[in-house]
């Protein structure tokens, strides 16, 4: 056998094998369901447990993204997306559907307290809070902030870590606090600018960025997900949290199934239903916000000053608020 024939034959075979290796062969029933998700680690764990218990172990692949990134993929790729199912911020699901219809109507009924379109069902609702590293607070001799506005105080220069709403919707929770209370005009803008400048190098694109920095002792104060602070405080770590006096705003995350026509994996819808019906108790423990009728939350986990933003949350409003955050 001569060398070139070997090379060329090998090459062609290899290319073909590699090319076909991971392609779908038309029969989607045996394929793994690909789930794209922006959910936090702890939510992913709950969802996976529920799916595994229902006998779906090994029949799905969970792929995590930051909210901004997954939102980008939904808007950019539409139905071409690799995923069969997503769990994602509800407002992004709505915007993606409006831009490019890509979700299937749900085959089951979910009746959340707040009405939603038929192509998604909320699975959790979360809120933010001001996070503190008590050791670092003491070491730096800083006063404990009580409101979002407090963070504009120059005393916190380079001592706070914030989430850039460009990267994560956690950042948006904070912007809603300022925008609803002080407006997006001169007063609000001034506060926003001061806070952004205080954050300086500690402005993070990832929602868990500030917690990461507060946990590592890089900064004493951050704005991040409330439930993560609750969990770490309970572990005995030097972490505490403050609910800002302006109120705690909330965002919901939902599950939706991608409409791939004939190629739609039938298992995706079943899994979506399971997540909505079976995962709620576990998720409610982590994110103590009521989404469906009949749910209850332990007294110590209740948020006293829970608020809803006066306008409907859309990707367009997020765009406005992102510009507001950056002082543009």
């Amino acid at each position, binding site marked *: 056998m001569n060398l070139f024939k070997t090379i060329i034959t090998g090459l062609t075979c290899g290319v073909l094998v590699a090319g076909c290796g991971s392609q779908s062969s038309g029969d989607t029933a045996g394929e793994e369901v690909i789930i794209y998700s922006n959910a936090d*680690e702890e939510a992913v764990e709950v969802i996976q447990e529920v799916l595994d218990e229902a006998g779906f172990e090994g029949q799905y692949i969970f792929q995590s993204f930051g909210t901004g990134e997954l939102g980008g993929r939904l808007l950019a790729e539409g139905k071409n997306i690799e995923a069969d199912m997503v769990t994602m911020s509800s407002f992004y699901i709505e915007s993606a559907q409006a831009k490019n219809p890509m979700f299937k109507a749900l085959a089951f009924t979910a009746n959340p307290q707040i009405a939603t379109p038929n192509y998604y069902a909320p699975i959790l609702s979360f809120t933010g809070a001001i996070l503190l590293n008590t050791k670092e607070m003491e070491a730096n001799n800083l006063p404990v902030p009580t409101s979002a506005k407090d963070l504009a105080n120059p005393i916190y220069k380079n001592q706070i870590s914030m989430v850039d709403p460009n990267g994560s919707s956690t950042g948006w929770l904070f912007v809603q606090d300022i925008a609803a209370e002080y407006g997006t005009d001169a007063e609000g803008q001034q506060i926003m600018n001061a806070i952004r400048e205080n954050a300086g190098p500690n402005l993070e694109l990832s929602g868990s960025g500030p917690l990461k920095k507060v946990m590592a002792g890089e900064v004493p104060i951050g704005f991040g997900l409330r439930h993560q602070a609750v969990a770490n405080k309970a572990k005995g770590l030097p972490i505490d949290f403050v609910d800002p006096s302006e109120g705690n705003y909330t965002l919901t995350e939902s599950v939706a199934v991608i409409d791939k026509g004939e190629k739609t994996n039938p298992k995706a819808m079943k899994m979506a239903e399971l997540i909505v019906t079976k995962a709620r108790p576990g998720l409610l423990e982590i994110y103590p916000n009521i989404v469906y009728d009949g749910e209850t939350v332990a007294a110590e986990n209740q948020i006293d000053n829970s608020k809803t933003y006066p306008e409907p949350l859309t990707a367009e409003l997020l765009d406005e608020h992102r510009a507001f955050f950056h002082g543009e």
Partner: protein
Amino acid sequence: MKLNNSPLMKASWLFIGALFLVFMFVPLGKMLMLSFNVADGLGLSHYVDIISSNDFRQVMLNSFFVAIVSAMSATFLAFILAYTVHWTNLPKGFKQTIKLASLFPMLLPTVTYGFAIIYTFGKQGLLTKMMGFQLFEDIYGFYGMWLGYTIYTLPIAFLLLNNTFQYLDKKFVIVSELMGDSRLRQIDMTVIRPLIGTFAAAIIQCFFLAFTDFGIPASIGGQYKVIATELYTQILGASPSFEKGSVVALFMLIPSVLSILLLWYVARFNVRYDSVEHFDLPTSKVKDRILGVLSSGILISLLFVFAVIFIIPWIKTWPYEMAFSTDTFTKVIESLNLMRVYKNSLIVATLTAVFGTIITYVAALIYERSGLFKIGKLTIESSALVTNTVPGMVIGIAYLMVFSGSSISNTIFIIVISNIIHYFSTPYLMSKNALSKMNLGWETTASLLGDSWLQSLRRIVVPNSIFTLIEVASYFFISAMVSISAVIFISGAKTMVLTTKIVELQHFARFDEIFILSLMVLLTNITALIFFAVVRYLYTRSINGTTKIKVKKPTVTTVA
């Protein structure tokens, strides 16, 4: 004499040509088209938007500044190391250590350095804990990136300088000594001047790498925005736009093209000596010791940054629960998803090495040892040059735009192809270099003796370039293992590789797992290097007794 075109040669040319057309020129063309796409037809409004934005100008300035500063510091440090290797009488083992240790960062993805820097120099970092105070403040942003890029590009600068040093003639030092030159003048005349071309090449090469890298700014960039992060945000940020992303990608190409042109230009400054004599110079013990200490200092600082990768995974919760624990490690090993990711990485790297080596070798054969028509050769040569100028991110984005939704999207195949195209240039030049140095008469002699061209290829040409082939394969393998910029856009849930998984884990701030994955990359690369060394050794032993034709070490290094 070169040989006639066998039909097979033409077929190979056609195959490689088609590969470039489909997997490089069409995607790049599509990207160019998209950049002109406006609501009602074609227009320049995206360009106008981006150029007139203050933010973007700042981003470009930042990118240029941090890349140039890092390129200069990397080249300077690499010079000290290379000088120590070649111009002192320090022990051989020490010199060998310098050579190996300075290449160490190449075995890890850049995104890992960023995290390693945070956990070394941060407020609760390893070094900070050891010293009791923070060495640098503000590691997020410019300083962190400066450090990261310097570590990243130092190996390349060292490779280039080390290579040129081999060809510097030490006789001139003796001459200079005899002429009574001052120390400064001696260094200037015998070392600095002959190296000017290489200095320029090293700085340009390092600049190019830093300018187009995504891993370091993604991990430690903070608010210091550079073009790589800007590009990522435009394509997959909160409100993505392929059109604007295309414009930004094209901006990233400009410095790349410029650096290639400059590299071409500075090549003429390379000094050539007719013969090079290798002997040890009369040098002072004091000078040797100072250089020994300096080099050790550089290497220790370099390697220390990576120490955390080995430590953090074994600690319960850094920095508050400093107890030894194997929990994280067991968790990672037990997690099916991560093992799948590891398998993907191995498959991708192996396929890239195998097919990359074959394709670049055939391309080089066509250019150097065939009588293929001129245009044929020119297309191969210029395609190779183009691959050199296109950053990985741009390839990834172009693929995302063209192949999204097609049957090859989210496959291992597209990742392998993107790696081969992305890293094509250096291996191609290495192969070409090796092939061009062989006597062109071999094939003629062989044919006179009755061998066909293919037989002579198999019996003479390939065996004589076997060391280059091994080097090319290991280059492809390691590059594929650490590559991130192209794959970040095209890997799917089923085809995740270790580097993209590292970026994903960042969302959850799971640093211990990030470092374990980095260790897996590192150990795999080291294993691969050992494997290639063994192959080389076995081959050397098998040809022992026959006369070995020495092939000079290739003078080319990496453009990632």
